[in-house]
């Protein structure tokens, strides 16, 4: 998961590596996701998060569809 400066740089990077496109987010969206995904990581009572809860985080941020299917 990498940072890129623009759509043009993304296209060039994919082409240079011969990779199929995955999913592209704005950095603000990723920050929202990071807050929800990692915010409890240092909680004293941390427990492994069930896949359904991870999926719910993605769903809440409207990261939906086959690409974002976690299970």
């Amino acid at each position, binding site marked *: 998961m990498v940072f890129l400066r623009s759509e043009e740089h993304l296209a060039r990077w994919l082409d240079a590596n011969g990779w199929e496109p995955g999913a592209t987010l704005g950095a603000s969206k990723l*920050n929202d996701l990071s807050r929800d995904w990692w915010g409890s990581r240092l909680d004293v009572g941390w427990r492994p998060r069930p896949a359904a809860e991870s999926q719910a985080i993605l769903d809440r941020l409207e990261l939906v569809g086959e690409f974002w299917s976690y299970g």
Partner: protein
Amino acid sequence: MDAFDLDVRRHVYFSVVANGRPPTTVETAGAFDLPEPEIAAAYRRLHDAHALVLFPDTTDVWMANPFCFAPTAHSVAAGGRTWTGTCAWDALGIPAALHCDGRIESACACCSEPVALEVTDGELVEGDDLLVHILLPARRWWEDIGFT
């Protein structure tokens, strides 16, 4: 994951925050007053459960996500230390996990030009023009977490 493994995992994470690095199995064995092989076995179980990531064929911690203990392009200043994020997501995850502001210095994956992001009060206040690309679909993230 049983209570013992959760205790070991908590010790690893709290040591990371306190010391800026993960404890070795010998150090954790000392903290728990247990033989090192018992702690090494717990580290391996935590790795298998995706609660830690060990360097291949070792019991050395590579990632206590979002914190990473190998060089990457993502440097994160947060909570009075400079950390390393495994990837873009983990880099933003460090201030999120620490519940503090943070500044990420990274590079465009295409041109290697420096990029910077700043998180204040949980919001991205610099770098919101940047894009993030995720190559693999969610169900494949743990196939090769180093690549993901």
